[in-house]
């Protein structure tokens, strides 16, 4: 644990929390461009958050204390997961406390609480959203874990820093296992972040929504935290993807210059990643909810295949 490591850890956490809405704004901006619309501006998510924090909270009569504490728990767990993923440097003090499996567990913890909060008031939409979210979750979570396992088998470690370092220092060849894992990861991220083709973040159309249905009862600061946490989740998934598949530019241990240089590299990668996400959303159509299990099942199988391919061809 070095001074550079601690600095990197705090910068990373602060950057993630502060910049996550910007990434969401950027994705929306790109989507608007692609759809030939005029966008509300890249800073719109911040304006929404500021507005929501000012407003008072309207709670349903039968909302329990679980409902009131869930936004803080969800925000806290996603902030922690943002701190675990190496985005700037690999020498992070928290890296020893939580590895890839713990990261998946942490994301699952946030999902459990948001689903429980969705069921708390007992509205038809809330339970519907919770059920669908958990359905997406039980297929996406093992797929994500298998993507991490493929990377762990390559680097003989589940520690995220070691994974990033190993993958960054391999020859630049397309490994079939990582290609399969990459496709699976993109599918999982789309589903987990409530993007098209599984869910549509821009709709309140009753029959198709997942994430929005769960959080319908939230308002004011609670909703602000939930929205912020959703941006953080997108940020975290994007960073996981960058760390696993494009880990170039992430600084090694104790390297101050590398840390400084990692910042523009990360910004550039995120900008490209956000644009790519907008493009994927543009090019695909929203799927019927009944087809979601097939989509996620494919992702799961691809991830398992990635692992098998690694063991058979590259092991």
């Amino acid at each position: 644990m070095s001074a550079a490591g601690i600095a990197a850890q705090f910068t990373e956490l602060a950057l993630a929390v502060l910049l996550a809405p910007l990434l969401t704004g950027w994705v929306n901006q790109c989507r608007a461009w692609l759809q030939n619309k005029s966008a509300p501006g890249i800073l719109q998510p911040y304006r929404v958050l500021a507005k929501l924090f000012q407003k008072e909270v309207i709670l349903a009569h039968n909302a329990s204390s679980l409902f009131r504490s869930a936004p803080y728990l969800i925000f806290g767990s996603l902030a922690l997961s943002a701190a675990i993923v190496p985005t700037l440097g690999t020498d992070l003090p928290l890296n020893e406390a939580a590895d890839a499996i713990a990261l998946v567990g942490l994301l699952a913890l946030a999902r459990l609480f948001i689903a429980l909060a969705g069921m708390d008031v007992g509205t038809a939409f809330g339970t519907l959203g919770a059920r669908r979210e958990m359905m997406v979750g039980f297929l996406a979570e093992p797929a994500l874990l298998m993507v991490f396992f493929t990377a762990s088998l390559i680097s003989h470690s589940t520690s995220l820093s070691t994974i990033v370092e190993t993958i960054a220092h391999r020859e630049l060849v397309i490994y079939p296992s990582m290609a399969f894992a990459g496709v699976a990861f993109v599918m999982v991220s789309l589903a987990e972040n409530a993007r098209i083709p599984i869910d549509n973040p821009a709709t309140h159309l009753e029959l198709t929504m997942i994430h929005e249905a769960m959080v319908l009862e939230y308002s004011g600061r609670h909703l602000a935290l939930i929205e912020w946490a959703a941006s953080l989740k997108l940020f975290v998934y994007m960073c996981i993807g960058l760390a696993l598949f494009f880990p170039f530019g992430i600084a090694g241990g104790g390297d101050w210059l590398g840390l400084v240089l990692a910042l523009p590299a990360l910004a550039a990668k995120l900008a490209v990643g956000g644009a790519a996400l907008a493009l994927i959303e543009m090019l695909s159509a929203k799927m019927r909810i009944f087809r979601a299990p097939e989509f996620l099942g494919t992702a799961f199988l691809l991830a398992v295949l990635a692992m098998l391919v690694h063991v058979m061809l590259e092991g």
Partner: protein
Amino acid sequence: MLAPRSLRLASRVLFPAGAVAGLALAAVALQAIFGSPASRVLPLGLPDLPFHARIDALSAFFLLLLGAVAAGISTFASGYLRAGEGQPPGLQCLCYHAFLASMAAVLVADDAYFFMVAWETMALSSFFLVTSDHRHAEIRRAGYLYLLIAHLGAISILLCFGALQAGTGDYTFDAMRRIEQPAGWATVAFLLALAGFGAKAGIVPLHVWLPEAHPAAPSPVSALMSAVMLKTAVYGMLRVTLDLIGLPLWWWGVIALAAGLVSALFGIVFAAVQTDMKRLLAYSSIENIGLIMSGFGLTLLFRGFSMGTLAALALTATLYHCLNHAFFKSLLFLSAGSVLHATRERSLDRLGGLIQRMPWVAWCALVGTVAIAGLPPLNGFVSEWLLLQAFLFTPGLPHAYMNMLVPVAAAAIALAAALSGYVMVKFYGVVFLGQPREARLSETHDAGPWERTGLLWLAAGCVALGLAPVTVISLLDPITRSATGYGIGSHAGSWLFLAPIEPQRASYSPLLFFIVATLLVVVTWLSVRIFYHGRVRRAGPWDCGFPYLDSRMQDTAEGFGQPVRHVFEPFFRITLETPLPLDSRPRYRELVEDRLWYWLYLPVARAVERVTALVTVLQRGRISVYLMYSFATLLLLLLFVR
């Protein structure tokens, strides 16, 4: 006060005494884990055939589990027992304590005779507890099924001991340890043990009794059966394979691993479609036993290839999960018991909103929910983490085919773990959250002080086991050392970091994780309070502006399970009854059943009936005919003796 039917004697003196005895047992067992094995010949049993008892690290660990969990369950039971439910309290109390004592006896038995006596006492006392409310036909049926499968298992175990003594006629475990078995007999013994103990543990396809018997029993007994009795079966399996049979064959591990994975997936998929809260928990027990069996299979696999450190890692994960499951499953069964008492309702479709009325039970159950879903920083995550780590090491196996198959097994484990999150959201959300589905639920009361203490003890156990894994693993070290020659306690990093093999490969620090997460949550809360405001207004629910909301518009348990039923349709046998469009009294009915019941059990039952019908030809019911049979048998035997 002293009458045998007195409720006060049982609930205020006997059950608390049982709890104290449990604590004392746990304390003694904790000492014994680190001590050298001690054996004793008890002055009990038949003349010339005394009982042998022995306590080593393995039995001490399971005694610790029994004592610590039973302390919580007995405390809960002090407040749970009511007059007029089932058998008289005195009788229930007697059976309960006989059950506890017999489980302890199973764990210390050191010869086949004592073991079988204790094992059967355990089966019978739990049978009487299961059928304590024997006025209902379904409970009698559940009890019968339980007794039947328990005895099939017992026969298998008896035959296993027969194979282990190898014709010496010496049934002490000490003698069995000394015998060098040929591979054939060792395999026979292993398979018999797997079937016998598997029947008690609820391994698929011998699981059918479990979802019937667990819900039928009073809740503390369900908790005890699920938390401890299933673990005695795991103990038996470990004792026979790792200790009594000296010969490790790697492909036994494959069988155990396959059985474990099938049970894990089967159990959790069925749990997702249950509508009775105790049945849901019982199916989830099948899943957890499946995870334990997978870890055990992996242990055998590594041991067979003499990869000692990894075998130790897999065995540690197995034992850790035994301990974890004992705590969180008993916590959930007892919470379900409190709900059952307060509402007199077991069906998930008539519960809901209980967090308002029963906050104590609801928050304790939340701890159990997060723990059983395998989420950090609680205990379920630690054992799953260890198990997955063990799986990640398998590519080092010197067998190419296994190298390929085992990662697929890891995927199955991951799927089962994710599904258990789904199941637990369903359980918790439908029981405790939302609006009450019945009007009378708004008059329920929270659990009493005894029940709360029991629940809190178990919840605290879940938290402690989750936050201090390094300490717990050092307890498991003596066991893995004697079974595999290695212990991972010394590798387990500092007291703060759990790093089973080496820190670069993987490390996890739940305490640090918990502290940072708590800090982040508290900082978020404080900054929102400081920079903004804490204003709250109460109003009706929004629900997209729909004003005619009622509690029946929430998901039912069936509704919540629908995605799983849809995705895993081939698993189930579904009978659907939908109303016609013009039906004036529409009724929707759906029955989800286990296919194995129709494919395996009913054909076997019919075959047995046919055979018994043939045998009745011999049974004429006249004494002279029977005398003739004995005479003929005697003549036949004389022929042989000469």
